[in-house]
């Protein structure tokens, strides 16, 4: 390890053409890592929900490039490499590969996300690290499928990995490999997935070392720094478009996974001098259940919320992250003390953190405000654990509706903020081949979208029959309380609901959180709708008519909420009546 950093070349010495070339080559290397992962991993979670991210850091752990990642991983990379450096600094050799996961001890975001990291060594100097963070199918713990909704401490969530060498100078440590597989209910999947992670990072190392060798090590150091500087300038320039000031907001989660309690996340966003400080002081203490957000996840959620507020092409690297400070008091829900459980945090409370930051930014710049997204309700059903082919099925097809922004309605089915819509849902035909399930319905809800000039997404009416005894892990964050808040006069989307219907004809609501075993049943879910943007009285009457014809808004709601009177034929707007009605509502 090259501890003594060479003197950094001044920015003026950087060849701007070489900078552009190098940045795009690094991005391409990262993209290629992601492509290899998507196509070769064994668990469907990677090709379906892209619940992984490939990234490259510099030698200090600053994120240089990231591709094909789930957005809630953005900004987590540096912490992992920092943990490696803290543990192994000075003793890192070419051919080493590290594995790590623990949020308290190894810079992890939550336990199921394991990181494989490889140093890029050229001419004896460590240039950086090529890494892959990926959600494992099962890591032991109290429930199959990594989400133990009953957990009250981290040991109940699965095996904890400190930073470990899994490969030492090119030699695989079989003892470690066996230890990892032995701690999973699905060792076959894990074996294939770890191989894919190893393969993708190996390709990253090959490509990045080639780039560094061609440039020369010192030039490469200078260009990596310049890439970070550029990222910082871009985000500062975007933040500079916001009026300076301090903007406060609060967002709640309504359950600690055991009891219904309101837990507040309070954010104060201070914009000054092209810099944002996000202060969570005043947020509630850490909770009993597994939704506490690790510090790494809190950082990521903040970066996600801020960068997604601006242009899609903003660099999201360690440089742009320098334009943001996060203050997360220890012992709170956004930075818990060990051994608080936290496996759920990449969905909840990442979603709430994102909402809190978006709400604060909306106060600074209402035009660009993002209405709230329906919180997720998708649980996991698993079975066959005693058979040769255990199965773990995610109910992705219950994803929620997203919120509206100016000039765009919410997406009717999209997912939670942590994914920014990056989840690919299944065809039910594929799912029926793979699992003992028959699907009855996956259709838009009616009158569930948060009304607005731009309305929220509708959410989904979903029903599936599971034909075998199975275990159900419930994660109904979006049930009971509406979650897709409206903005600029737009209204809130409807809450979710979930019921279980049994073969004996009985039916009851599903628990919000918990793990239950059941025989064959039908699961019926209504996922929450997203929030609206702007007053529904300003929505174009033709758009309201289209929603009525499409059956996602009722005629009553068109009249009562949108002030649009639809003619008796159901095909036309009664314009005089609409104008009069809207005028009377002011």
């Amino acid at each position, binding site marked *: 390890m090259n501890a003594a950093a060479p003197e950094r070349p001044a920015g003026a010495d950087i060849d*701007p*053409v070489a*900078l*552009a*070339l190098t*940045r*795009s*080559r690094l991005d*391409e290397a990262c993209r*290629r890592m992601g492509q*290899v992962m*998507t*196509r*070769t991993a*064994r*668990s*469907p979670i990677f*090709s379906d929900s892209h619940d992984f991210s490939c990234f490259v850091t510099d030698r200090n752990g600053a994120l240089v490039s990231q591709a094909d990642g789930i*957005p809630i991983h953005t900004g987590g990379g540096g912490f992992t490499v920092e943990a490696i450096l803290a543990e192994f600094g000075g003793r890192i050799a070419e051919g080493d590969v590290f594995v790590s996961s623990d949020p308290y001890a190894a810079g992890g975001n939550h336990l199921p996300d394991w990181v494989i990291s490889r140093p890029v060594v050229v001419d004896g100097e460590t240039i950086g690290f090529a890494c892959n963070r990926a959600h494992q199918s099962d890591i032991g713990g109290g429930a199959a499928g990594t989400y133990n909704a009953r957990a009250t401490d981290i040991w109940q969530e699965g095996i904890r990995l400190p930073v470990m060498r899994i490969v030492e100078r090119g030699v695989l440590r079989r003892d470690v490999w066996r230890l990892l597989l032995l701690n999973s209910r699905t060792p076959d999947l894990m074996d*294939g997935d770890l*191989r894919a992670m190893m*393969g993708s990072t190996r390709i990253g190392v090959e490509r990045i070392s080639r780039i560094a060798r061609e440039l020369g090590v010192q030039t490469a150091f200078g260009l990596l720094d310049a890439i970070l500087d*550029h*990222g*910082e*300038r*871009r985000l500062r*320039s975007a933040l500079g478009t916001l009026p300076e000031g301090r903007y406060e907001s609060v967002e709640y989660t309504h359950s600690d996974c055991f009891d219904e309690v309101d837990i507040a996340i309070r954010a104060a966003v201070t914009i000054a001098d092209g810099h944002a400080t996000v202060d969570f002081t005043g947020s509630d203490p850490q909770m009993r259940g597994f939704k506490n957000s690790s510090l790494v996840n809190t950082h990521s959620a903040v970066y996600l919320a801020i*960068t*997604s507020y601006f242009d*899609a092409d903003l660099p999201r690297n360690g440089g742009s992250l320098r334009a943001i400070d996060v203050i997360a008091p220890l012992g709170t829900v956004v930075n818990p003390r060990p051994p608080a459980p936290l496996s759920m945090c990449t969905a909840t409370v990442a979603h709430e953190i994102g909402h809190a930051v978006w709400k604060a930014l909306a106060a600074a710049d209402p035009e660009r405000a993002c209405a709230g997204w329906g919180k997720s309700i998708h649980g996991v059903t698993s079975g066959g654990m005693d058979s040769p082919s255990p199965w773990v099925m995610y109910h992705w097809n219950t994803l929620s509706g997203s919120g509206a*922004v100016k*000039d*765009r309605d919410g*997406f*009717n*089915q*999209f*997912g939670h903020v942590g*994914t*920014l*819509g*990056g989840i*690919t*849902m*299944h*065809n*039910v*035909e594929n799912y*029926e*081949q793979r699992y003992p399930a028959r*699907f009855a*319905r*996956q*259709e*838009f809800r009616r009158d569930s979208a948060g009304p607005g000039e731009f309305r929220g997404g509708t959410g989904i009416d979903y029903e599936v029959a599971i034909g075998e005894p199975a275990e159900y892990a419930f994660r109904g964050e979006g049930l009971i309380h509406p979650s897709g808040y409206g903005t600029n006069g737009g209204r809130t989307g409807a809450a979710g609901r979930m019921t279980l219907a049994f073969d004996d004809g009985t039916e009851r609501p599903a628990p919000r959180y918990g793990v239950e075993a059941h025989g064959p049943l039908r699961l019926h879910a209504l996922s929450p709708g997203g929030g609206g943007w702007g007053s529904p009285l300003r929505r174009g009457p033709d758009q309201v008519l*289209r929603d009525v*014809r*499409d*059956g996602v808004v009722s005629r009553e709601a068109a009249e009562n909420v949108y002030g649009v009177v639809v003619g008796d034929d159901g095909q036309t707007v009664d314009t005089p009546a609409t104008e009069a009605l809207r005028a009377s509502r002011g």
Partner: protein
Amino acid sequence: MSELSAARASSPAAPWRIGVDVGGTFTDMVLADATGLTYSFKVPSAPADPSAGVLRVLRAAADAFGKPVEALLESCGLFVHGSTVATNTMLEGKGATVGLLTTRGFRDSLEIRRGFRENQWDHRRPFPPVLVPRYLRLPVSGRIDRDGCEVEPLVAADVEAALEEFGRERVEAIAIALINSFLNPVHERACAEIIRDVWDGDPDLVSLSSEIMPIMGEYERTSTTVVNACLAPRVVPYLKDLNARLAALGLERPVLLVQSNGGMTSVGRIATRPVRLLLSGPAAGVGALNAYRKAAKTGNLISMEIGGTSCDVMLMERGAVSVRDALTVAGYHVATPSVDIHTIGAGGGAVAGVDDGGMLFVGPRGAGADPGPACYGLGGTEPTVTDAQLVLGRLRPGPYADGSIALDRDLAFAAIERAVADPLGLNVEDAAAGIIRVVEQHLLLAVQRISVERGRDPRAFALVPAGGAGPMHGAAVGRTLGCARVYIPRHSGVFCALGMLYADIRHDLARVFLSTLDDVAPGELEAGFERLEGEARTMLAEEGFDRDAVRLARELDLSYRGQQWVVRVGLGDGAGRDPVDIRERFENEYDRLYGHTQPDGIVEISNQRVVGTGALPRLTIGGTGKATRDPMPLEIRSVFVDPGIGRRDIPVYAGADLRPGHAVEGPLLVEERTTTVLVGASDRLEIDAADNLVVHLPMEAA
């Protein structure tokens, strides 16, 4: 053989072949006569009436030969048409009003789109408009289960009610896509029968997902079927009309069309499957590579066709271009066999600039045709790749592109100075050279994606740059890739029209076959292949190919258990029926793609496929007169050659002065009518017997 070269031709030798490529801007025609001589013509397209463009280019050719159009068509043995009419219908959102029948409970699959996002960070961008509004997506009760068994009967009353609604809404075409119909189409067929009895539309305008593309996955199958239905009323009448107009003018054989798979088919066959035409133009590049194989003496070619706004890259290995399952057009998912073309936004018109963080960028946005690059003097102020080439002396100021535009160097210089050089603190020449380096890296990465990423080593390939801007970048990109040769067709400006004359008839057939490789019943697999082969033979027989002229190839889609991405594996002749052999072929290909295998992984089969090809007799590209004396350059010009050499006085040749047999050492430029070729410092240019330009690159350790 420059464009419009017919003027010097006496009369082509009958029978000849004609290829017409209707693009957005130009309609290109290539005529190849019985001796292999090739003539090309170009006229502006007529977007409102594409067949008028076809007739116009035929008339231009007929005039040039001093013949009536009828004479041109009567002696035409093969008329091939490639058209963007299907693509443009989608891009412009002008598809037909379609009614969709779905299984009750799933009327929204088409609009949910499985949540696919091109760029999830771009969450403010809406999806493209859904092709069938929800009020025209109507549910019918009835269910087929995962084994293909009926578990709920189809409710005919639902179909009848939907048809009433469709009638009220005056739908032009109907799509039917029911859950699990890929396993058992009985409900879809029953719906179609009711429609035939009740609906007064043309039965060709009813699309069944189990016929259009019987794959697993209701979203992709539905989307493909709906796109087919959207296209049918727009595309099929045009094709039938064109066929009739040409027949009336004397064309004896029916018009053939280039499909997305790079092969041809007849108008009659495409009438129920217009969705297979979406890549009709660019897919003809396969034929062009076929045409150059013999002259280039290799079946390993990578084409890089660069126009004003984009670059299409395609790879041919041992004479075959790989075909993939799906493509996206205007944001719509279409599962049809399609040539594997990688497209990036990097053409001559790609805009260069510096972002607000100080980073140089080139593309992907293009300046378009209007205003176009700054140097066109049409009001554009943003510098483009073309402006950079002009500043570097590689393009000649003044008349350009057959004289349709005049290039102004001062405008190019000013644009680069303002938008790139000043913000970066570079002089204008270095800034221009930087723009070229960045765009050439984009091209390089594009070629690597289609080669290295597919497990192919580009050093084993010859690069074929085409299009107006390709030949300027070919040598530089080829050199970085480590290619030994760059093969530049004289006809690079009509690459696809020429390709149409060298395509084969091709049909891709597939059926779902779900099994693990270890448990496969060989008899069932064999029976499935034989069924597909029978279908392919029948189709080709109807198109005039007897048993001997037909080639059939078997393929399987394989993956390790749990993986979503399949690897398509060819089974070779006769062999490949044994699971051990199949596994070995799969693992070889898998290793080539991803660099590792899963020795204990379970291999699963998802589809079996048959590719049926009817080969047309090969044409040989004929050469023209051989060189008799050394070529003389038009002029010696100061040109920025490359970053190592900088500016130097180099010879500039007129393309027409370079004849077969000529060989000249770089650096040099060749000016053709619609393109300019840059040959680097250590490169050697030869004109081969087929009159194409071959640039030999120095071989050195990379």
